[in-house]
């Protein structure tokens, strides 16, 4: 899913990231002190001989376990023309059974344990999860290890599943942001696979039923232990759990596929695109700037996180001006989605009066310009650090949320400890660094703008 900043009308979350407090607080640990880890629980990490990364985090959730399998393959890996959307399609196929456990048997077994289970695909990763009773851990492991090693489906099942992909695309399509982000990526990227959304180009989705043979190749390439991570959080014992993992996953054989991610040439001139929406809507304006890939070492990423808060959170001057005082827009947000390759810093807004579209864009660009010349002060930075750190840890209140957070850093860096390294970087960001980063990325020639409106408004 794309990272959006659309505020729901009824469950608008004041100051984003609602949530609760972490068990670290329960145990009396302070919020990350200087140099301390932000992630408050013990991480047991192992790498099996076949390359499978195993992360086990015991957590005080009696009777409950979250079981995540991360495949470090997403739509980023779809470098072959005509195959966009395939990582996501393949995620669907993973529920179609094996010789040992047919699709029906797989569903029946998960049903019998009352599992909450699903999967998702994004640019860089495909994630499968099961939340269930920890006493069912071995059943889960048996099922999951089997399908990741022995998936088997017919061409008929493959063609049928392609229909559900079209259905997913169609259900998303009524929401304007689906089209906006399709257009934004297609415009902002020339070469890199981030040019298409995870759903894929529509033409490729329509052709999916004809790609059965390719799907077998896809499984063979990417669903290999060295490309995957297993994250188990909850009421588990690390040693016994690891022994179980070795029992079920050791037969999994490494793959040999080599590939190179596509490279995006530097953007040298502003780009723009417009969508005429067929239904009535308030106009949307989205601005995007190319920014670097995730790193747990450099300061540019953390600086961009902080700039997004300083410039576009509800406490920012721009938000106050456009949403609260002048009330020219009813939605405004901005930020950087962490990716393995250079991606985009995106600002999106919905304008109440079509006549104000140009002015709103100008206001946003003025704020981006101001960040390059009028430094934020230390007090502002301290408030942002507090917010970012509280927001992070407040979300760690169920096994599933903890596993999900770790999954993000496992897929980005191959190492869950990356989260601890990353959060310490916020303390090193200075007002001068923010100014430098703003100058580096918020340049006109690095900009892509997409607008969407109804009735010919531009």
């Amino acid at each position: 899913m794309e990272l959006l900043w659309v505020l729901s009308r009824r469950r608008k979350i004041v100051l984003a990231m609602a949530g609760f407090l972490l068990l670290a607080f329960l145990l009396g640990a302070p919020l990350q002190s200087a140099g301390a880890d932000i992630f408050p629980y013990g991480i047991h990490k192992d790498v099996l001989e076949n390359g499978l990364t195993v992360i086990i985090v015991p957590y005080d959730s009696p009777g409950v376990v979250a079981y995540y399998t991360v495949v470090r393959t997403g739509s980023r890996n779809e470098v072959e023309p005509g195959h966009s959307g395939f990582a996501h399609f393949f995620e669907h196929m993973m529920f179609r059974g094996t010789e040992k456990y047919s699709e029906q048997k797989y569903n029946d077994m998960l049903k019998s344990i009352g599992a909450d289970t699903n999967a998702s695909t994004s640019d860089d990763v495909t994630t499968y999860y099961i939340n269930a009773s920890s006493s069912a851990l071995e059943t889960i492991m048996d099922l999951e290890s089997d399908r990741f090693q022995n998936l088997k489906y017919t061409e008929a099942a493959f063609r049928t599943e392609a229909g559900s992909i079209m259905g997913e695309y169609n259900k998303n399509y009524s929401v304007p942001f689906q089209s906006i982000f399709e257009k934004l990526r297609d415009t902002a990227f020339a070469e890199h696979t981030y040019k298409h959304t995870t759903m894929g180009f529509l033409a490729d989705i329509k052709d999916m039923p004809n790609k059965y043979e390719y799907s077998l190749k896809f499984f063979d390439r990417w669903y290999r232990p060295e490309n995957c991570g297993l994250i188990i959080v909850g009421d588990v014992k690390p040693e016994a759990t690891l022994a179980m993992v070795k029992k079920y996953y050791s037969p999994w054989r490494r793959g040999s596929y080599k590939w190179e991610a596509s490279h995006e040439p530097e953007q040298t001139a502003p780009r723009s695109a417009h969508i005429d929406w067929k239904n009535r809507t308030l106009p949307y304006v989205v601005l995007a700037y190319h920014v670097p890939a995730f790193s747990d070492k450099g300061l540019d990423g953390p600086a961009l996180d902080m700039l997004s808060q300083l410039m576009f959170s509800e406490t920012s001057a721009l938000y106050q001006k456009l949403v609260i005082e002048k009330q020219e827009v009813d939605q405004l947000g901005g930020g950087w989605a962490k990716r393995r390759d250079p991606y985009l810093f995106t600002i999106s807004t919905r304008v109440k009066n079509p006549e104000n579209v140009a002015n709103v864009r100008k206001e946003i660009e003025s704020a981006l310009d101001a960040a390059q010349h009028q430094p934020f002060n230390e007090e502002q930075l301290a408030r942002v650090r507090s917010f970012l750190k509280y927001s992070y840890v407040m979300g760690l209140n169920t096994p599933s949320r903890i596993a999900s957070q770790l999954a993000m850093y496992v897929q980005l860096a191959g190492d869950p400890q990356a989260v601890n390294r990353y959060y310490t970087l916020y303390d090193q960001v200075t007002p001068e660094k923010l100014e430098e980063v703003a100058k580096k990325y918020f340049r006109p020639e690095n900009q892509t703008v997409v607008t969407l409106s109804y009735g010919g408004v531009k």
Partner: protein
Amino acid sequence: MKHQKLPCVVLFFLSLAACTSLRAQSPATEKASHPPSAAVAAPLMVELHSTNSPLISFRILLHAGSINDPKGKEGLNALTALMIGQGGTKDMTYKQIVDALYPWAASISPQSDKEVTVFIANIHKDNLQKFYRIFANLLLQPRFDESDFKRNKDELLNYLQNTLRFNDDEDLGKQSLEAMLYANHPYGHTPEGTVDGLKSITLDDVKAYYKKVYTRDNITLGIAGGYTPEFVRGMKADFAKLPPGKVAAVTLPKPAPIMDLQIDVVKKENRATALSFGCPVDVTRADKDFYALMVASSYLGEHRTQNGVLFNYIRGLRGLNYGDYAYIENFIQDGGSTFPVPNIPRRHQFFSVWIRPVEPQNAHFALRAALFQVQQLVAKGLTKEQFEQQRRFLLNYSKLWNQTLSRRLGTLLDSKFYGIDYFPDRVDRELKALKVEDVNAAIKKHLQDKNFDVTIITRDAEPLKTALAENTPSPIQYAGPVSDEVLRDDKVLVGLKLNVNPDKLRVVPASELFEK
């Protein structure tokens, strides 16, 4: 009602499981208390204490919802809630409040439904006192600033006129269905109101509504976490300052029975056609039969799971869409989870089926397929094996519903609304006592097999209307080969006669929905 008490902390989670069964997760140290003496009149308080938890969750429940909107002022309840949750206090502007809450990553969220409105908040206990003062003042001394009024009113109007009507077909289908089910009923308009109603509301209306409805006898204070007794005493004393009074309960007429298939074809531009259908049911969580129907509904398809009959029949075997599910009560998904949001309790409930968007040419077929499965259920009931499998699933799955303290508090408040013990405990007890005969009897008694209200969101409104009116066959083509079983059923489905009432089959432009 007394609940099992757990020692402390880890109350967020579930008790240790036996075999693959989870044991019910009871609230921590839960109690409901009236003021200690008649001298201190305070609202009812529901506590969920967790000694060592540094997190404090609040849910302040107002016993009023959109059913309390005055005629012609539909949306007044929701707008008043926004003016509190997204407004200022006597001492602080909205901007000042946003600034104050920011470094704590605190949240305050108003949520309005038909019968209740809730203000949800979460905070770390280190910041509790400072946060609570703001939170309490929002409810006790709202600012009702003219500028906030304009912003919040715009938000609701834009939601109805743009987002709901034109930018989210799936929500549109669900809200349209409720409008059909509850025409001429206090549930008839959305919790956000109507366009005309909202336009007619003035700031004085909001002030008057607040004065009338936000009274100490009309509010239940919910708190969970590691608070102190002193804190609770202070909170009670604060809210005791609200004026006394209780809003008279709104009488709810029994929804008119549905005697045929009544269809609103909502016309708008889109790629695919979303469908929802349903019928009122005369049961809620307070009724024994609710739990029997919960099994039946779950058999058809639990929300966002892949093991339901509808999902397998329409998506799994035929690939017609993204998913298909059934519900035995009003259901709104909670954030990114698959579980229901708490604090939308209702005295009247409805059974519904949600068919996610299908290709327009397959809409008639998909409706037939879903109705066929409901008809099969009503005609044949569940086998003992199906019943046992579904009950086992629900017994375990329901233990995952309330993994956070805030959700447990919300569920506890809902349980009070229905006059039952803690809902997950009730689910556990009722399901264990059920027999397949109970489920099948409840299906026969409460579920329709061919008469429903239906909403269909499509660009091809007129042709579909004609096809529905004439019961035209709906042949289907697949992208690849399908099983003989599918082909055999399809022969029945393509011509399945639906009980369509042509006089209650209409095309409605989306632009006209939710207007009055």
